[in-house]
Structures are given as C-alpha cells and as structure tokens.
C-alpha cells in the first residue's frame, strides 16, 4: 500500500506540537527511514498511520483507506493489512513467544494448520525457534524485540511500520533483522522504519526522511543518517 500524508499537524494536549505541516508520499514498495532526535515526532507520524493518533489538521490516506472516517470494522480490516513493530514491543506477557505470533493469525481467522506452519517459519527467520515456549518476561530485551518483529511480519502485510526495531539488538543481529526487512520489502511490501541506528542507515542506503521538532527538514533518495537538526 502507498501512504499519502498532506498538510498534517498534530497538537498534543497542553500545547505540544508533535508534527507541523507534514507532507509525505510513500509509493507502494518503497523503503523509508525515518530519522530525527528523540521527541522529533517519528513515533507520532507512525501512529497516525496505524490510526492510534488522529491529526489535528490535514489528511492521511493509506492504499484505498481514508483514515479520517472509518468504522470500527473497517479499522480492523485495515490493521490486518498492516504489520507494526512497536517501540515498546506490546507483547502479551502471559502468552508464550509462539502464541504471541500465532495470535495475529488466529485473530483474522487463519486455519490452525496454516497458523502453525507460518508461525514456525517466521520464528525460524528471526532466530527465535529455540525460545518459542518462553513468555516475554523470560526473554532478553533483544529476544522480545525479535518476537515483536516476527509478529509484525507473519501476516505478510502490505505495509510494514517499524518503530526502532533494532534498539535492543547487537550489531550482528541488527543486520540480520535488516536483511529480513529488506527481503520483505523486495516482495512488494512498503516499509516505514523509524530508527536511531546510524550504522544500518549508512550501510543499507534507502530513502531518508528527517524530522526536527515536528517538521520535515530533509528528504533524500539515498540518504545517510547524520542529523543536521540543531548542529
């Protein structure tokens, strides 16, 4: 799915301008890095796309969905087409790693046999097959992150939204995960990835969008990480 954001401003309660007059078009199949200092609005931008946040002003459309007006049922359908890696993982602590992944497929009514197969496959790919019976509190930070990644990609989404997916990973594992995201991107999935990982951005060059205090300050086709925000 493609993403079309035009003239979006987001004000949070007291008077925090998280985003200001953002225009962004991401064609289907593109890979986009979202960079910027902490608090620059990356997560807010991604949350607009997952519709956890509504813009104060402006329009957002993803694929054929207009996010302004949407019934609860349509929202569910839309989110099934989305893969989301949350910055704070949002794993269910009382389910095992495997159940956390399978869960997404159960929710959308995939037959049990297929759930099992696809879950196993993706757990292998993120290297968590051996740890599949542990629950999140029993997993290391990096392991939890990999389960969150597995959950986001297991339903073969048309749009993948990844918020800081390598924050808890060592350089080597981060690269493996990056390979995984790239291969998913190669199969036609649009990928939006908010990241602070300078090493990855510089090593795997893609389109880079930099935010600074809620404004788009840079949009490069094959950009590098370095932030020019306030230096």
């Amino acid at each position, binding site marked *: 799915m493609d993403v079309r954001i035009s003239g979006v401003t987001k004000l949070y309660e007291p008077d925090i301008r998280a985003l200001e007059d953002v225009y962004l078009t991401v064609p289907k199949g593109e890979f986009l890095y979202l960079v910027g200092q902490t608090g620059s609005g990356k997560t807010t931008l991604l949350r607009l796309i997952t519709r956890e946040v509504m813009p104060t002003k402006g329009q957002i459309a993803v694929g054929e969905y207009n996010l302004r007006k949407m019934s609860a049922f349509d*929202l569910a359908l839309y989110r099934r087409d989305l893969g989301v890696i949350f910055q704070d993982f*949002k794993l269910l602590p009382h389910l095992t790693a495997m159940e956390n992944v399978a869960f997404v497929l*159960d929710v959308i009514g995939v037959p049990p046999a297929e759930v099992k197969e696809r879950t196993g496959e993706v757990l292998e790919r993120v290297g968590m097959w051996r740890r599949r019976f542990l629950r999140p509190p029993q997993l290391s930070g990096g392991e939890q992150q990999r389960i969150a990644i597995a959950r986001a990609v297991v339903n073969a989404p048309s749009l993948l939204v990844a918020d800081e997916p390598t924050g808890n990973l060592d350089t080597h594992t981060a690269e493996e995960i990056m390979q995984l995201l790239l291969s998913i991107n190669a199969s036609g999935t649009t990928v939006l990835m908010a990241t602070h990982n300078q090493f990855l951005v510089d090593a795997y060059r893609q389109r880079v969008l930099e935010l600074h205090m809620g404004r788009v300050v840079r949009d490069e086709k094959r950009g590098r990480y370095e932030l020019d925000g306030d230096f």
Partner: protein
Amino acid sequence: MGTFRYVLRDTNRLLFRHWGLSLLTLFTAVAVFFLVGSSALFMLNTRYLVARVESELLVQAYVKNEAQLQTVADKAHKIPGVASVRWVTTAEAMERLKTRLKGHAQALTILGENPLPPSLEIGLARAVLAPSVARELLAMPEVDDVIYAGGLADKLARVSRFATRFSMFVLVIAVTASALVLFNTIRISIYSRRDEIGVMLLVGATPTFVALPFVLQGMLLGMGGALGASLLIGGGYEALVRGVEATLPFVQLFRDPSMLLRLGLILLGGGITVGWISSWMAVERFIRRALRPM
C-alpha cells in the same frame, strides 16, 4: 474455524490462566446469588405463611334454627371469596363451651336445656373479604347474628399487604445489588487486562472478536455463581426445613419441589443474563476507549 477455536481457547485461558481471579469472581457471584435466592425464599415463605393464617380466619354466622343451616350454607357457598362452610349444631356448640371451660364444665350442667344457637363457620380465601362476606350473610333473613374477629381480619389484611410489599422490596434490593456487585467484579477483572484488549485491537481483531471471550467468561462465571448458589440454597433450605420440622413441628415452611426447581432455573437464567450484560458493558467500554485515537 480458526476464529471459533481461538475464542474458545481464549475464554478457557481467561478462566484458568487467572484462575485465582476467576475463583474470586465466582465466589462473589455465589454469595450474591445466594442473597437473591434467599430473599426469594423469604418472600415465598412470607406469602405462604400469610396465606395459611388467612385460611384459618372464620366468619361465624348464627342461624335462627338448625333446620335452616342447609339453606344458609347453600347461599353462603355462592358468595365470592368464601372458601369453606362448616356446620356447627347446637350440641357441638355446647361441647365446645365445655372444653373451653376446662375443669369447671360441671357448672354448665346446671343450665339444663342447651341455650346455645346453631351456627355456620365460614372460611375465607382472603382476610380482606371478611367485612363484605359478613355483610352479605347478615342480609339473609335466616341469619340471626354474624361474628368475626374484625380486628384480626383487619390485622391480617394489613400484615399480608405489608409482608408482600416488604419482601418485594428486599428482593428488588437484592437483585440490584447482585447485578452491581457482579458488574463491578467483572469490570475490575477486565481492568487488569486492558492492555491485552488494546493490543488485540491493534493487530486487527474486530471489537466483537475481542469482546467474545470476556463475555463468555462473564456468562460462565454468572452461570457458575448461580449454579453454586442454587445448590447451596437447595441444600441449606432442605436442612432448614428438616431442622424446623424436627424442633418446631408446629411451624410449617413453604415446600413445593416444582416451585423450588423453578426458583433454581430463574436464578440460573438470571446468572447467565447478569454475567452476559455486565461483562458486555464492562468490556465494551474498554474497547471503545482503546479504539478512540488520540
């Protein structure tokens, strides 16, 4: 298919993963339905008692001579509200006076001829009817005098009305309290799982799908609570009736198996309904909140 299986598995998980919580809810539900059931039994017993006492209220109609007893009895049967008619001949009236006077009955032998008049004892369906029945009887030419415990009839009618109203009131209070307590308990128990609800909605579960396990859980807990309460009440009431029979044979408690069974079924239906409504209301609120974008 997958969905159905998931809902069942998840309901099961909700019930048994947090089995401590489930047990607590179940216990509360049992306590609450026990209260409702007991109030209902209290009400049944009150009404039963009043009905029994009412059936003992008699209107005494003194008839001019014994030959007319049949006529008056026939007419009396036709008066609405009359439940029974019993003849009291002059001889029987004398017998009664003798037993009333106990050891001093020999005094009566001095009387010679029996001066007591024959009468009819008329049983009523309801105590309130006494004055009107008495009036109709007095209007008959064959009837000499009518005596009934006017004060008692009045008292009984009032007690009956008061008891019905009071036990209705208790029942309504009990039902309201039970629904509220159950709703609160389920709400608190859902509250501790609100994160889960949020995550499910974020990965594309429909509101119905999210609510279903919680609602099923609520219904099962409500049913379990009602079932437990029914069994407890059944056993407890049986013991009470037996205990009363053994120690207070003159007291009669309400005892109608089909009525008690009906009470159990009503309780069960009520438990399921209350569990359903309260869990639905509770989970629906969290879903609405989780879906509302910031």
